[in-house]
């Protein structure tokens, strides 16, 4: 069993225009184990993406206080690639496009980066695994010979993130707004992929603005984030309640003095 703990996490980000650092996360606490699916919901601009990028190790985000522990070990000073090899995965909102590197080549490199030099995945095993997962995600073979994300539609990119998840098999996957821009059919396919990973050796942190995704991937725990903190934690019912009453309703119920913005974070 693997564990992921976020303790009193404060994170600052430099604003591109003003060049001033702004504190986005103001003391986040979160603890999860493999075998669990957690969802983080919250209004725009509240720090959900900052949390996911900071756990993964995006260089632009600075931890000013607190800690992130993976299996009890602090990872805040660890480079991104090492965090990944230790079992973290982030399905990104805006995946990079990389010309000249095929999807298949990239997937093999990612799998092999986790394995010893004398234990690299065989071509046969790789192809078998790839075929199985392509089928599951309703993706065509030709997608793997295309350059990584280059010229992919928004939906293709999201599917490709889930394909990577299935191929790499991390302990923890953070899904950052994986549902944004997906039609209902694509949403079902993506959910099917994530659900196929469910089990004792996999945990996921699903970041979403809308409750809709959680109809397909039922979480064990739902957290609500506002203004850089987790303000409420509950079961799947909490998501439904939010859908009915909105974030403002919850804010007022909790008596919080927070201005909700509609800007994308």
């Amino acid at each position: 069993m693997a564990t992921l703990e976020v303790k009193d996490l404060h994170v600052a980000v430099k604003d591109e225009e003003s060049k001033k650092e702004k504190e986005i996360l103001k003391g986040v606490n979160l603890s999860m184990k493999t075998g669990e699916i957690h969802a983080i919901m919250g209004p725009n601009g509240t720090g959900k993406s900052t949390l996911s990028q900071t756990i993964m190790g995006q260089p632009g985000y600075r931890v000013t206080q607190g800690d992130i522990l993976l299996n009890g070990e602090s990872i805040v000073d660890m480079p991104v690639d090492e965090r990944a090899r230790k079992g973290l995965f982030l399905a990104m909102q805006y995946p990079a496009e990389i010309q000249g590197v095929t999807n298949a080549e990239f997937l093999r490199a990612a799998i092999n980066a986790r394995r010893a030099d004398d234990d690299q995945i065989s071509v046969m095993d790789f192809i078998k695994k790839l075929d199985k997962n392509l089928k599951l995600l309703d993706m065509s073979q030709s997608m793997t010979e295309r350059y990584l994300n280059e010229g992919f539609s928004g939906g293709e990119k999201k599917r490709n993130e889930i394909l990577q998840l299935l191929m790499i098999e991390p302990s923890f996957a953070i899904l950052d707004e994986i549902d944004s821009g997906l039609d209902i059919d694509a949403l079902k396919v993506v959910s099917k992929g994530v659900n196929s990973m469910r089990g004792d050796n996999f945990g996921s942190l699903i970041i979403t603005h809308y409750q809709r995704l959680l109809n397909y991937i039922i979480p064990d725990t739902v957290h609500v984030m506002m203004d850089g903190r987790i303000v409420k934690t509950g079961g799947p019912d909490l998501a439904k309640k939010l859908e009915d009453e909105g974030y403002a309703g919850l804010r007022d119920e909790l008596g919080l003095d927070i201005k909700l913005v509609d800007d994308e974070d």
Partner: protein
Amino acid sequence: MTELKAARAQLAAASAENNEPQGLLDRRLSARDLMEKLQLPRMQRFKFHDWPLIADQPLNWVQSDPALIPATSKDDEVIKVTQFGQTTVHVNLPQKLQDQGVILTDIFTAAREHQELFEKFFMTAIKPDENLLTAYHLAYLNAGLFLYIPKNVEIEKPIEAEIIQDSTQDEPLVSHILVIADRGSKVKFIQHLATVGEKANPANMMIELMAQENSEIDFSSLDEFGPHTHTYFKRRADIGRDAHVEWAVGLMNDGNTVGDMDSELLGEGGYANSKMIATTTHDQEVGVNNRVTNRGKHTTGLINQRGVILEDSELIFNGIGQIIHGAHGAKADQQNRVLIMSDKARGDANPILLIDENDVEAGHAASVGPVDPHQMYYLMSRGIPRKQAERMVIRGFLGAVLSAIPSKDVRNKLIAILERKLTDGQQD
């Protein structure tokens, strides 16, 4: 006797020893005279005037021992010709092509046996009076190849020229490749430049492509001269009506290099696509002018240069797109991009557009900077170590030129060299 007189006398003797026709000797002598008044060429933002680009020695004829060059694997996919220093090791032109009138020979045999063609084209695109190094080239020419493809002949297999500099001896390599593609002909030509030996020698390498009406020339080059070679190169295509020239150059020399790529779009409807990738390492300095000149109406000239600068090295890419008055409907587009991989690396990518006609389409893009951090983050977030991720991003960045090289063998060689240079030169 003055120095010039002595030099002229020496050239005359050497030319006679080589059984050269009078025409070539006369041109050597007038080029030697020109050397007295010409200057080294200039390049924007790049200094190389203290490099030893001219050997301080007379025109010598020396033999090179073919046993010293690495055995080349047999490759049925190409028509091969090998020159080691001044020695032509072998020419392997199929009988069928010879029967069709194709000529592939060393440059001096061409001067003797195909005088009419040689006289008509040799050093007419690149002119001896352009600068000190073009004059030096003609006066002290000591190696080279000649290829003629007759009207409407298409050579399917690429011709691959292995040009190996013999630096086991103190001898400059002054080499000229002349390719004449007659009307409607087609050819793919690959050159592979390499060095054997550790002596410090200059290399003065020129290529003229004469693309006559409706012809097509695909020229690719893998330049891999050694660290002790100072190279000056000049490669020029004269492109006739509706003719088509593709350049794909992998500039992978280990030594200091300065050079010009030139595509002259002379006839209406001509097309040139000049692609180059370069990688510099250690304290190497490399400067390239890549020029396309639209003279004819409805001509298209494209430049795409990509460079990767490692360690303490320097790389300058100047892209020069010139559209001459009267070239209606001309198109010119260029991209010059360099990646700077260390704090001490220096580089620049300069687009220079000289447009003297209104009715044209012209565009340019340039970039100088580190590897895209967003791409790096993405690859690393999948567990791929930083250095490997860097090499993947770089390979993608260079992909357009890599894929344009017609021989799989040469392409794989180029990828292997790249991988080696990148691995050696990457910072911890």
